[in-house]
């Protein structure tokens, strides 16, 4: 859950990149880290807890301070989860306190089962944290569009964006930074607007 500190005028939000193994979640963070425009010192280190074969073991973590909004410093914490099935407990831990989710799907035909399983796994893990996807803003990113065996976007929409409320979706080639910032800006917009539109009491 986002934290707003009235004393220090800071807003902190947590965005988690979720999806099947080797789908491009870490690549998204690497691209954001390498290409984001920030004032000096506002971009933290990209921390990766990875195995020797570069698979994410615990999570990747990237803190970024974006522009100030109405005098509030906005600090974004971007996390990825490990995609491999065996690391489910870790995925649950990383989801704790999540404000927004970018689901990174692998566009290759043969990965469709893994995409669907990972999406179901997300729903299950949110449920275990007494959360549900209706309450948490999320966007879909269909990655690896440059591969010859990429499934049509309509097919991926049918597979993953077929719930009562359709969410924004983006095609991407994460290693070329295509679609990366579009997804990040949209999830940021959705999650901030969600709080703005909630009719919660005003504080002095």
């Amino acid at each position, binding site marked *: *859950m986002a934290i707003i500190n009235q004393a220090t005028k800071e807003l902190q939000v947590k965005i988690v990149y979720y999806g099947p193994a080797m789908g491009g979640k870490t690549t998204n963070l690497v691209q954001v880290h390498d290409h984001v425009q920030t004032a000096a010192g506002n971009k*933290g280190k990209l921390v990766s807890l990875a195995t020797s074969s570069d698979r994410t073991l615990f999570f990747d973590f990237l803190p970024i301070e*974006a522009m100030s909004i109405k005098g*509030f410093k906005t600090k974004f914490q971007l996390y990825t989860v490990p995609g491999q099935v065996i690391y489910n407990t*870790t995925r649950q*831990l990383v989801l*704790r306190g999540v404000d927004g989710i970018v689901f990174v799907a692998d566009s290759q035909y043969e990965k469709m089962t893994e995409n669907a399983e990972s999406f179901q796994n997300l729903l299950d893990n949110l449920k275990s944290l007494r959360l549900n996807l209706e309450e948490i803003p999320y966007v879909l990113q269909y990655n690896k569009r440059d591969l010859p065996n990429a499934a049509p976007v309509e097919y991926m929409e049918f597979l993953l964006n077929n719930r009562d409320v359709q969410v924004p979706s983006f095609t991407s080639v994460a290693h070329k930074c295509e679609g990366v910032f579009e997804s990040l800006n949209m999830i940021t917009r959705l999650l901030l*607007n969600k709080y*703005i539109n909630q009719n919660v009491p005003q504080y002095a």
Partner: protein
Amino acid sequence: MATLPQLFEEDIQQLDDVLREFLRSTDALTAMIIDKGGFLISYQGDSRQFDLTTIGALASGAYLANQTIANLVNEENFDSVYQQGENVSMFATNIDEQSLLTVIFKAQVGVGVVKYYANTAREQIAAQMRIAQERDPGGGLDLSVLNIADTSGLFKRKM
């Protein structure tokens, strides 16, 4: 899931007073209050030689991983986690459902003294958190004060 209460200046001041007193008593380097979701809530002590934002994220992950291990060995809770280094050590202990007290201290300072004073500090911090919670039990955070009309382009790609 229960959320951290909204903290006002008076809350942060109280929390910082507790942390300052704790540092005085223990001679620790840095004391942090961390949300279990990975956010740094407040700290006192040295923030120049340590990247406290990243330490907060990693410490909360490590602490929660240890809680999961506790459950796997039929232990209700590993209340505290102590990581011993050659020069610097770290101690993390539970405050309440939402937050942790994490302390970085020189390895030559015994962990006993840190544990002892951490018990008092975490009770005082938990008490202040309860005050904040009871002020508005149902209240989460209110971003409407920000009045953001357009958030597009919040993150821009370098050309």
